[in-house]
C-alpha cells in the first residue's frame, strides 16, 4: 500500500489542522466513496446472497456446473500465462532500460510508456486488425507464400493471451525497472571483480535483489488480467468467455443479477485476497 500519511513524528502540532477542519476537508471524498463505490458493490453482493431469504444457491451453482468451473479455471490459467509471458518479455526490457542513458533511454521509455497511455480499446482494436482473416498477419504470411489459407487467429484463446500480454506488459516492466534502478551498481561490479561472469553476477546479485519489483509487477498483471473485460470481449469473442465477460453476459443478456453478483463476489474475493497476501510489494502509482 502506498503510505499516504507522513510519519507523525516529524509533524508539529502547531501546523496541524484541527480535527473538525480535517473531517470537513475529507467529507466530500468519504461521501463519494460510500455512495458511488461501497453501496453499489455491497448491493450487488447482497443480491447474490439474499433472494430475499439468505441462500447459497448462486455460489453453489458456480461450483457445481462444470461450464462455470471451466471458465473460472481458464481465466486463472490465462492470467497465469499472461503474467509469465509479461515477465519473460518484460524483465530484459527493464534490465536494458537501467543500463541506458540519454536519448536511447528516452526511446526505450517511450516504447514502454506510449502503450500505457493509449486506450485499451485502441490497442485491442489494433490486435483485431493484425489478427483477423484479412488482417496484417495473415496477408503478410500469404504474400510470402508461407500459407495458402488464412489462419484462424482472431477469437481464439491465443489471441486473448497475446493481446492481454501486450496491454499489461508495462505494468510488469515499470516496477521491475524501479527495483533494478535502486540496486547500487557497486554490487554487481564487486561480483565481477571477485571473478563472477556476467551470468553469475546477474543470477547471484541482480536478480535476487530485483525480486520485490518482480512480485509487484506479477501481482499487478495477474490481478488485472483476472478481471479484464474489454480485451477478452473484443479479441476473444463469445466462445472464449472469461469470468469478466461471463459477468457481463449474465447481466446484459440473461439479466441474472443474483448469479452475476455471485460471480462478482468470487472475483472480488480472489482479487482482494491476492492484494492482502502481497500487500508488502504493492505501491499504487501509475508510473514508478
Amino acid at each position: 500500500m502506498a503510505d499516504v500519511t507522513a510519519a507523525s513524528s516529524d509533524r508539529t502540532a502547531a501546523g496541524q489542522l484541527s480535527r473538525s477542519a480535517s473531517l470537513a476537508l475529507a467529507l466530500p471524498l468519504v461521501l463519494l466513496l460510500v455512495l458511488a463505490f461501497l453501496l453499489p458493490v455491497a448491493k450487488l453482493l447482497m443480491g447474490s446472497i439474499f433472494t430475499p431469504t439468505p441462500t447459497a444457491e448462486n455460489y453453489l451453482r458456480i461450483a457445481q456446473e462444470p461450464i462455470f468451473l471451466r471458465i473460472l479455471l481458464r481465466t486463472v490459467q490465462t492470467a497465469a500465462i499472461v503474467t509469465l509471458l509479461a515477465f519473460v518479455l518484460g524483465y530484459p526490457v527493464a534490465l536494458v532500460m537501467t543500463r541506458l542513458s540519454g536519448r536511447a533511454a528516452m526511446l526505450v521509455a517511450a516504447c514502454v510508456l506510449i502503450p500505457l497511455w493509449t486506450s485499451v480499446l485502441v490497442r485491442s482494436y489494433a490486435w483485431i486488425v493484425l489478427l483477423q482473416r484479412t488482417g496484417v498477419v495473415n496477408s503478410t504470411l500469404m504474400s510470402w507464400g508461407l500459407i495458402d489459407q488464412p489462419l484462424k487467429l482472431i477469437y481464439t484463446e491465443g489471441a486473448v493471451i497475446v493481446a492481454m500480454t501486450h496491454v499489461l506488459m508495462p505494468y510488469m516492466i515499470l516496477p521491475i525497472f524501479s527495483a533494478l534502478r535502486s540496486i547500487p551498481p557497486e554490487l554487481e561490479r564487486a561480483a565481477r571483480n571477485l571473478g563472477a561472469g556476467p551470468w553469475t553476477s546477474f543470477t547471484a546479485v541482480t536478480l535476487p535483489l530485483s525480486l520485490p519489483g518482480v512480485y509487484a509487477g506479477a501481482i499487478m498483471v495477474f490481478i488485472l488480467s483476472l478481471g479484464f473485460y474489454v480485451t477478452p470481449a473484443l479479441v476473444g469473442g463469445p466462445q472464449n468467455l472469461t469470468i469478466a465477460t461471463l459477468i457481463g453476459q449474465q447481466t446484459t443478456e440473461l439479466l441474472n443479477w443474483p448469479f452475476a453478483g455471485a460471480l462478482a463476489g468470487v472475483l472480488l474475493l480472489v482479487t482482494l485476497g491476492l492484494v492482502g497476501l502481497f500487500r508488502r510489494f504493492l505501491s499504487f502509482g501509475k508510473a514508478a
Partner: protein
Amino acid sequence: MSTTLSETNALDVLRSPPASKAALHPALGRWLLNGFVGLVLVFLLLPTVLVVPMSLGEAAYIQFPPEGLTLKWYQAYFSDADWMSATWFSLKIALATTLSATIIGTLASFAVVRGNLPGARALQALTLAPLIVPHIVLAVALYLVFAPVGLTGNFTGFAIAHTMMSVPYVMLTVSAALQRIDPALELAALNCGATRAQAFWHVVLPNIAPGVAAGAVFAFLASFDEATVAFFISGVDGKTITRKLFEDIDYNLTPVIAAASTVMVVLSLVLMGGVEWLRSRSAASTR
C-alpha cells in the same frame, strides 16, 4: 555494465580474471539481450502505432501497407453526428471528472497528510480500493444502482462514476507532493498572520502545483479512456466515445475507427507528454 567508457571500466578490465574462453561470451550475451529487447519493443509499440497508417489508407477494408493517402476517414469521423456527440459527451465528462476529482482529492489529501483524522488508515485503504476492484465489478454494480434512478446514459451519472474511479490518482500524486514540501513554509505563513485558507492558497498550493496538475491529467485520461464502466452505464443517447468505439469494432469495422482511435491516441500522448515534462522540470528544480 554501463555503456560509457569510464575509469571504472578500465579498472574492471585490469582486475577481471584473465580473459580466456569467456571473452566472446559477454559481447555475444549483450548482443543477444539487446536483440531480444529490440523485438519486444517492436511488439510493444507496433500495435499502437499501426492505427495511424490505417486511418490514412484509401481502401474501405483493412489493407497493410495502405495504398494511397487520404483524409476521408477523418472527414467521415468529424462529420458523423454519432461520433461527434459521443466525442463531446466524453470530453465533457472528462472535464467535469477532472475538476471534481482534483478538488475532492486535493482537499482530502491535505486532511490526510496535514490533518488530524480519525481512521486515516481506513480512509487510505478505501481510497485505493477503486484501483484494485476489477472494473467489471464496478461496472455492473454501478449499472444496478444507476438504472432505477435514471443515471444511466446521463452526464451526472458518468461524472459521479468517473470521479470515484479517478480520485485515487489525484490522492496519490497530491499526497506525494504534500509530503515533499516542508511544513515549516506553511507554519511561517501562519505565524505571519495568514489564515489557514490564505496559507494554503498562497504557500501550499504553488508548491504542490506539479502534483495537482499530474493528478488532474491522470483523472482526465482515466475518464476519457475508460471503457468498461462506460460500456455498461452508457445509454442510447448518452454514449461515450469508448462505447461507440466498442460497438463499431464489434459490428462496423471501417477505417473510421482508426481515425477516431488516432484522435484519442494523440490527445492522450499530448496530455501525458505534458505531465512528463512537468515532472522532469519539477525534478530539476528541486535538485
